């Protein structure tokens, strides 16, 4: 008889893996990707594919170079790449998007130790860097295909400030036929993805609901003319469902998630109502990312039968 394997219990593991979780996120992003290709043309697909592939290549190359175990099979780089592409307009030059990829994967993710070790969301930092480096290209929102009217080409945030939007255009906004970056315009597709993630128990709905709810509440308190519209604009849906829920950079406890979501909503509403609204969602989530360790510490669940440690 060959030697038996000996290990400490448990001797049984669930079938959930990091790879399966990331695959679910990729699936959840697909409705928005399809919507983007319909609204802005096939260049959306090209940008997304290039960005995802380049992120994988970067991670692979870095790990080879640093003689680390290769982890690209966990698919997290694909998610980062897709999210980065979702944050640029369809007209964005590819090389500029690749700069964002390098920042996200190399600077934010790999330099801090790879998956699970980054303290801010890599895709968001990539976006912010692109936003400040290539501001013109990042804000050159193309009109949806086959439309020419003012509503379609302007972003909802711009429209809100002009006060020139009525409830009848609401449906059009919901399905995403308006100016914006790839992944943010079609609220319906993003919500569909979010529902899928919740149904697959990849994420809990706490952060998205807290974020969206508090943005609505605080926008109304701060006197925004159309707070409901704010929900469907400026990448809030994309941020609330896919960015703020990133495991690594959001709290692990339920109470922590609630606080995190509320904080994101408050900051977003503040920036939109009292500052330059561009990038409010990105900056809100990034700022809240920074306080996650503190939130985690403060919201430690009460152990069952636990007595206070001496």
């Amino acid at each position, binding site marked *: *008889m060959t030697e038996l394997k000996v290990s*400490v219990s448990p*001797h049984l593991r*669930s079938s959930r893996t990091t790879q399966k979780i990331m695959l679910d996120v990729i699936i959840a992003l697909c409705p928005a990707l399809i919507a983007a290709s319909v609204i802005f043309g096939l260049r959306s697909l090209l940008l997304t594919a290039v960005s995802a592939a380049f992120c994988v290549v970067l991670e692979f190359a870095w790990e080879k170079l640093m003689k680390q175990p290769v982890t690209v099979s966990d698919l997290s780089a694909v998610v980062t790449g897709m999210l980065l592409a979702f944050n640029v307009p369809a007209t964005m030059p590819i090389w500029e998007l690749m700069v964002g990829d390098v920042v996200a994967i190399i600077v934010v993710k790999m330099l801090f130790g790879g*998956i*699970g070790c980054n303290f801010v969301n890599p895709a968001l930092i990539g976006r912010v860097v692109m936003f400040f480096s290539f501001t013109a290209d990042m804000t050159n929102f193309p009109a949806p295909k086959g439309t020419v009217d003012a509503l379609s080409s302007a972003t909802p945030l711009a429209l809100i400030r002009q006060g020139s939007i009525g409830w009848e255009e609401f449906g059009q906004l919901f399905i995403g036929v308006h100016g914006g970056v790839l992944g943010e315009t079609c609220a319906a597709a993003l919500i569909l993805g979010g529902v899928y993630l919740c149904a697959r128990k990849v994420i809990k709905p706490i952060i998205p609901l807290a974020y969206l709810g508090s943005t609505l509440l605080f926008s109304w308190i701060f006197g925004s003319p159309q707070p409901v519209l704010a929900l469907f604009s400026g990448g809030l849906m994309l941020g609330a469902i896919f960015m703020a829920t990133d495991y690594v950079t959001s709290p692990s406890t339920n109470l922590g998630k609630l606080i995190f979501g509320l904080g994101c909503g408050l900051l977003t509403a503040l920036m939109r109502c009292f500052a330059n609204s561009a990038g409010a969602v990105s900056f809100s989530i990034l700022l809240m990312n920074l306080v996650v360790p503190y939130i985690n510490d403060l919201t430690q*669940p*009460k152990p069952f*039968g636990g007595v206070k440690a001496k």
Partner: protein
Amino acid sequence: MFLPRLHGVHVPHRKNTAGMAPERMPVPATVTIPMSMHIGAPAEPVVKVGDTVKVGQLIARTGGFVSSPVYSSVSGKVKKVDDMLMSSGRFMKAITVETDGEQAVYEDIKAPEVTDFQSFVDAVRDSGVVGLGGAGFPTAVKLAVKDLSQIEAVIINGAECEPYVTSDTRTMLDEVPWMEKGIKLLQKYLQVKRVVIGIEKNKPRCIEVLKGMAANLQGVEVMALPPLYPQGGEKVLIYNTTGKIVPEGKLPLDAGAIVMNCTTLAAIAKYIETGMPLVEKVVTVDGSAVKEPKNVIAPIGASMQSLFDFCGGFKSEARKVLYGGPMMGIAVPNTDFPVMKNTNAILAFDEKDATLPEPTACIRCGSCIDACPLNLMPAAIEAAYNKRNVDKLRELHANLCMECGCCSFVCPAKRMLVQTNKLAKGLIAADNAAKKAEADRKAREAAEKAEKEAAVK
């Protein structure tokens, strides 16, 4: 009354042998009976090499208050009394008996005289019964309650939440009269007002049978519990049946509860009725490598290999063999290990099931927090252990962990969470010991100094 539900995980049930009535295996050529099949002091052998022993004969007496006597499970001749390697990695004295195949019963066996609480507890001690659910805590010690009014409820544990294991299921189906007698004994001598039998809902037949039994008894109720691992964990079961929380570092009795496994209960009743102590066990033999999974009636001390042989051997090479279920069972290095008092299952797995996935980086998904029945933060405990931060480990209540393994089971990154928590407990214990040693040293030095000063004066 609203009670928050404890977390847990949905493990696969794989109760393949639930419908199989136990079969008696042939008497093996030898049995090796360890002197410690319980928590506490090892028993002390009272036989020597060459002695003839019979079934039910005392071969080792209790080694202390928290201990349990050991009886021969076979008739034959004592071949060896020496050290054997246990699954814990420690050496333990064991008695090897060469069997004669007669299974002659010891002549002096007679039902003990039980008249009051003390004689009942004594009888339980003499029965050699320990916690048969797996823990192996001497039952008599658990029952030796100073103030009987403290007991609000006795909870009979029929949860059997581990995958594969069905030996308790068989007790609840095949030994109802013994369970009934056991409950009556507890009611009579411990003045127990409330008896709750907790069974996971995946055993509807057991629930039905025991509800039938409870209908004829006063103060006995059967509670169908959700099949959520670790339902049979002591603290979990107490909470889910009575709503009481056992505080950290306290005993179930502090929450008014005594938990007893259903097979333990039946074994006590058998001894008090017949005088035959605990010498055999129903053991579930299953796992992907086993040819014909069965429930086997095995003499204590029979080697794992003899049980596997009785079940047709292996259909594929066994690569991992366990005492107990896959969630908390103990892996052994070979199949020579014996059936012990607290063995409820012996599982053998093929290469595929024996191979565990490699750990990858924590993605901080929080699944372990959502899985922990005790509301701990396993990933945070792991991080604190890796930094050897003892204070943080205390703050995170690492010592509260009951090592059920839910966190490791759910972790998508396949991290060794419960395994690390076990190490963390060791680290805390070492730190406590070091602090105590330091305090003792200071006290001694102070005393010496005082003595010297006194001498000078």
